[in-house]
């Protein structure tokens, strides 16, 4: 397996944060669990260095969007993350922004064959 995975290709800026907030809105999770859930729900379409989510989680917590607490999970001690009310609000804003972008890009990709581009 290629050990040189990129942390965050340019076109995925902001996507890890969006995914983490979305998953934590479903239930509290710890890091490994979040990674597994991303892989499962994305159909393994997203590959990344799994350790890279921790700095992102720490940053989201600094912004008050998450809280963390070390808890016993399945007999093991792990740091579990939870979404805060601020995080829920930011998630809603970010999902809205993402859908706006997706729709806009979709319109461009589908294009309109009858529209002539402007010519100089």
């Amino acid at each position: 397996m290629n050990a040189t995975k990129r942390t965050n290709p340019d076109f995925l800026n902001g996507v890890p944060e969006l995914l983490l907030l979305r998953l934590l809105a479903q239930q509290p999770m710890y890091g490994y669990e979040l990674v597994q859930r991303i892989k499962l729900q994305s159909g393994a379409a997203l590959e990344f260095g799994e350790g890279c989510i921790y700095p992102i989680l720490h940053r989201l917590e600094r912004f008050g969007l998450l809280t963390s607490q070390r808890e016993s999970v399945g007999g093991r001690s792990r740091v579990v993350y939870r979404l805060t009310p601020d995080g829920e609000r930011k998630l809603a804003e970010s999902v809205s922004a993402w859908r706006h972008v997706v729709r806009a890009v979709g319109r461009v990709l589908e294009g309109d064959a009858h529209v002539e581009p402007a010519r100089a």
Partner: protein
Amino acid sequence: MSNRHVLEAVAAGLRRQGVSEAEAARLLEELADHVADLFAEQGETMNDSVQQDDRIASRLGRPDVLVAAALANRRPASVFARHPVLSFVVAPIPVAILSWVAFLFLCFGALELAGWLLGDAYVIEGRAVSDWPAGLVQAVNLLVVAIRFLPPAAAAALLCWCARRAGVSWRWTLTASGLVGLVAGMLLVQVSLPVEAGQGSFQLGLGFPFYHQWINLVQFLVPLAVGVAFLWGTRHRPLVKLSTDERA
């Protein structure tokens, strides 16, 4: 590379890049937990074999990649973000007081300048108010009103701007502007214009007059309103700044 060495390499990289010990320790602790989960997933025990090392490293990420991720998301260098209590709980009180000092310097400096530029008619020292031009009397009356609201509003705006630049929680913004408001609400202004030359006075003080002067309540609310306005104005700034989002 041994998975132990992966974490050691990450630790060394973080130290080289000046990441704080607390941040580095937290990241390494959680990476170690993650490695333990990877072992459990594969039903293996740690054996330091090269194949196991490669599998762990390929899943976790290369040390340089992990260090780069830590740097990209690190605690901001801003002093305000690193010391929010000092910046937004302690500092508002002296900042509010200094705002009045600065305002008085500005205003009296402006009055002196006016006297110098416009002639003796606009000099207020040693003259009774009856000898002042009407414009000068209005300016002084305006100063008396303005000092109650403008300096604290400016102090609150400055602290809100610092909070926004530092990217701290809205609670710090509201705390800072609330504390400035608290000090502003305590301001007592007593002015007596000189009926006779040399007998005027301008006194500023701090007290607890909320219960008998409504204007002090307004003085308290103005900086708080500045803080709320700042938060309202930035409420739509998205967290996830998509690189293709033109609205960001």
